């Protein structure tokens, strides 16, 4: 069910055309990272640590090199030296190939290139690594304990980017405060608090990381890979391998999902170093086990939340402490979690502390609204508890306290125009919420969530063909239908049919800098760049028409696909007609658009979940689910709905099933898709969608990115539904059958 309010009428935007890449993808013709082939290609494999924490005493790969078919072996010794001791570069290189210590199971130690992948794999067994085992630190509570093993001995806690003298596993402490938190709690009639824990989960993209690298004898490097951002990859390769950016070309191939996990690079520098030694192009494809153990999942950790309210429902104070696992190197999304934890609520007295905590697990990476789901799992349950205790409908309670334009976030800036209240209204009026849920062991939960959305740089160019079609060149890899959504914005601006725009995604030598496909930015920023390129084309076409007609430039107008002149009503020409005359009137026309937006609007989302718990098995079955999200303006409603359904499906999996299941030795016991147990279509209900449109005034078409906020509310909505179905509050993820049975048996 979709309900779209149309604030403005467009010709192309808001329609649902086929995506240009669809046929190739469903027929298998599309070239993904693993499909790439070239002459002389050899294959790489990576030796990885079996220990969560150990010192490397020695590495001997002589026997591996002697194996027939092995061409090259590389270790951290083949990476450039870091004479300045730059910590950031040291960490980046350390995660590519471990030098002195391994910091998690799966940490890369050595790469082998051979004539086929089987020989390369066989050679890994011939590499001898002598370890001194160290005790592992596997969760934030343990890591923050002063008696724990320090993972990075020479690292000190930072506060606002500054080193403190505290030497522990906390890499960074964030704090935001507003008003007087003590006074806020003193004024409260009711205070509810709780500590809510989440566990490490993976993005679960279907295509494993795959990359081919060719290091030519002239010192140039070309990489073909599955990536969310070819330009950031180029920057990272330059840093890690210490070669000039101009010597590196990254060619993005089709990508089978990323969700943030394909923003960092992993095996690309190893393949490059192997290629440098071997003189051949080297391809490395990760196994699913490597994807789980050696790439960047999203962290576990805890979110403690305390909220005070008056009896009339007004929130007087909100306090939170968040501690998230960074993994083996700094950089958990706790900074973002700290900003999202109370984003939906207006409150004058707030205090938030966040801790980025090093543990012996893979370095975490972004995953859809990174940090916000972990935070919302706490906040939205406390909010639910309060609304139950006060006897106020949970949507009404949220509406009473919802932020509006001009209200301050906990870190200070004021919220711009946003759609939170419209999302809440749509939730209240939705067919699911209007319907009564009856029966024992059934419950309905709701929750809301927020994500900032980012802008960042994007570039596009458009060339006009003589038949009136155009070629659109862009640098954003297409994960969720962005070829279509960007082409649609170009078509709208040029006032030509969608089918007349042919989008291509090109390498880093062929278009201007374009940041990652992530942060819910692509349809916003790259769409904006396409709009600017289209405006450039339109303006050049107007100039050409004025020259052809011999009339002043400012007398020519372009409307409904027709050029005309106020100077002479007889003068009129379609876009196609003018395009056909470019060659003889000055040559072809190409437009350019580049942007680094200064303003970006965020997105609020909501979830409504009806579920039933089987008290005998602990299994939770979702009976009905509605996802609601502010899209600003839905360029292609089907792909907006797809994002909302995808984010909801991932949230449902995160809530009910998924976890990195570690044994006491720090070994992940479920590093296969069979055992990790992401939900399949058989586990999921139809996910209803309601697109809310509160246009972002900073974008020419009002777009708000929709790739992330939708994963935030499903998890607490499910937890709130389980509370209402079972009478039990769930403080830990996942809420799987053993956890449910354990909870139900607590009072027996």
């Amino acid at each position, binding site marked *: 069910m979709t309900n779209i309010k149309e604030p403005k009428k467009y010709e192309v935007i808001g329609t649902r055309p086929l995506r240009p890449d669809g046929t190739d993808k469903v027929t298998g013709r599309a070239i993904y990272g693993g499909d790439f082939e070239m002459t002389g290609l050899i294959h790489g494999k990576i030796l990885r640590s079996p220990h969560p924490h150990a010192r490397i005493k020695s590495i001997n790969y002589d026997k591996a090199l002697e194996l027939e078919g092995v061409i090259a072996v590389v270790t951290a010794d083949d990476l450039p030296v870091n004479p300045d001791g730059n910590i950031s570069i040291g960490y980046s290189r350390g995660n590519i190939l471990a030098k002195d210590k391994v910091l998690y199971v799966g940490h890369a130690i050595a790469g082998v290139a051979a004539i086929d992948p089987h020989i390369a794999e066989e050679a890994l067994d011939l590499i001898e690594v002598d370890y001194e085992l160290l005790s592992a630190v596997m969760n934030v509570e343990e890591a923050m304990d002063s008696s724990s093993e320090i993972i990075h001995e020479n690292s000190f806690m930072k506060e*606002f*980017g*500054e080193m403190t003298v505290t030497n522990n596993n906390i890499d960074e402490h964030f704090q935001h405060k507003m008003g007087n938190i003590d006074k806020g709690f003193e004024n409260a009639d009711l205070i509810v608090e709780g500590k809510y824990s989440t566990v490490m989960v993976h993005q679960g993209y279907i295509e494993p990381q795959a990359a081919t690298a060719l290091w030519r004898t002239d010192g140039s490097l070309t990489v073909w890979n599955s990536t969310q951002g070819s330009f950031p990859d180029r920057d990272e390769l330059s840093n890690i391998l210490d070669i000039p950016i101009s010597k590196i070309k990254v060619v993005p191939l089709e990508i089978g999902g990323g969700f943030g996990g394909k923003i960092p690079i992993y095996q690309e520098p190893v393949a490059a170093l192997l290629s440098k030694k071997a003189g051949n192009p080297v391809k490395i494809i990760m196994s699913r086990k490597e994807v789980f153990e050696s790439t960047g999942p999203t962290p576990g950790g805890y979110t403690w939340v305390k909220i005070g309210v008056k009896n009339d429902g007004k929130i007087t104070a909100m306090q939170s402490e968040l501690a998230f696992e960074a993994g083996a190197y700094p950089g958990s999304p706790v900074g973002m979690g700290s900003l999202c934890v109370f984003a939906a609520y207006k409150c004058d007295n707030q205090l938030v502390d966040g801790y980025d905590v090093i543990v012996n697990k893979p370095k975490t990476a972004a995953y859809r*609204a990174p940090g916000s789901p972990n935070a919302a799992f706490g906040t939205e349950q406390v909010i639910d508890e309060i609304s139950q205790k006060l006897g106020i409908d949970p949507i009404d309670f949220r509406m009473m306290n919802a932020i509006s334009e001009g209200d301050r976030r906990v870190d200070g800036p004021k*919220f711009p125009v946003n759609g939170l209240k419209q999302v809440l209204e749509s939730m209240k009026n939705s067919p699911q919420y209007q319907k009564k849920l009856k029966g024992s062991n059934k419950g309905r939960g709701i929750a809301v969530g927020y994500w900032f959305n980012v802008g960042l740089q994007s570039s596009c160019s458009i060339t006009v063909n003589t038949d009136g079609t155009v070629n659109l060149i862009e640098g954003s890899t297409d994960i969720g239908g962005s070829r279509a959504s960007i082409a649609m914005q170009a078509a709208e601006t040029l006032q030509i049919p969608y089918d007349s725009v042919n989008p291509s995604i090109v390498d880093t030598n062929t278009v201007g800098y374009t940041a990652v496909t*992530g942060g*819910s930015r692509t349809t916003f920023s790259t769409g904006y760049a396409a709009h600017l390129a289209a405006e450039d084309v339109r303006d050049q076409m107007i100039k050409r028409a004025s020259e052809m007609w011999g009339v002043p430039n400012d007398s020519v107008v372009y409307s409904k696909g027709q050029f005309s002149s106020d100077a002479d009503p007889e003068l009129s020409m379609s876009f196609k007609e003018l395009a056909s005359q470019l060659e003889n009137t000055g040559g072809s026309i190409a437009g350019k658009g580049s942007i680094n937006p*200064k303003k970006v609007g965020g997105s609020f989302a909501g979830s409504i979940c009806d579920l039933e718990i089987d008290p005998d098995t602990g299994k939770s079955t979702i009976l009905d689910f509605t996802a609601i999200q502010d899209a600003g303006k839905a360029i292609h409603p089907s792909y907006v709905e797809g994002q909302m359904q995808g984010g909801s499906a991932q949230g449902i999996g995160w809530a009910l099933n998924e976890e990195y299941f570690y044994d006491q030795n720090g070994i992940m016991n479920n590093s296969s898709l069979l055992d990790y147990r992401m939900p399949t279509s058989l586990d999921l209900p139809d996910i209803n969608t309601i697109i809310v449109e509160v246009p972002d005034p900073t974008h020419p078409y009002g777009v708000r990115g929709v790739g992330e906020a939708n994963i935030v509310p499903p998890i607490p909505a499910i937890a709130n539904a389980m509370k209402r179905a079972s009478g039990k509050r769930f403080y830990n993820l996942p809420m799987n059958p053993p956890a449910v049975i354990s909870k139900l048996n607590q009072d027996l």
Partner: protein
Amino acid sequence: MAKVFIPALLHTFTKNVSEIDVEGNNVRTVINNLDMEFPGIKLKLVEGHRIKPSISVAVDGNITPMGLLEEVGEQSEVHFLPAISGG
């Protein structure tokens, strides 16, 4: 004058001053003038000729990619925030 909001973790540095009006027509001059009020604070915000990579600067609520070059108006609000990214 622009209103500069001091990040919570720098309040000890500013003797609990959380907001201050500062002259300046761009972020660079605002920080230079802020440094005259609280000597040394510039070093906590700026690295070379740019805002530190771990920090974002927001002018009137919008995190700006222009950093020190962003224009600041008479009634502007300036915030220094942790840098954010997405997935």
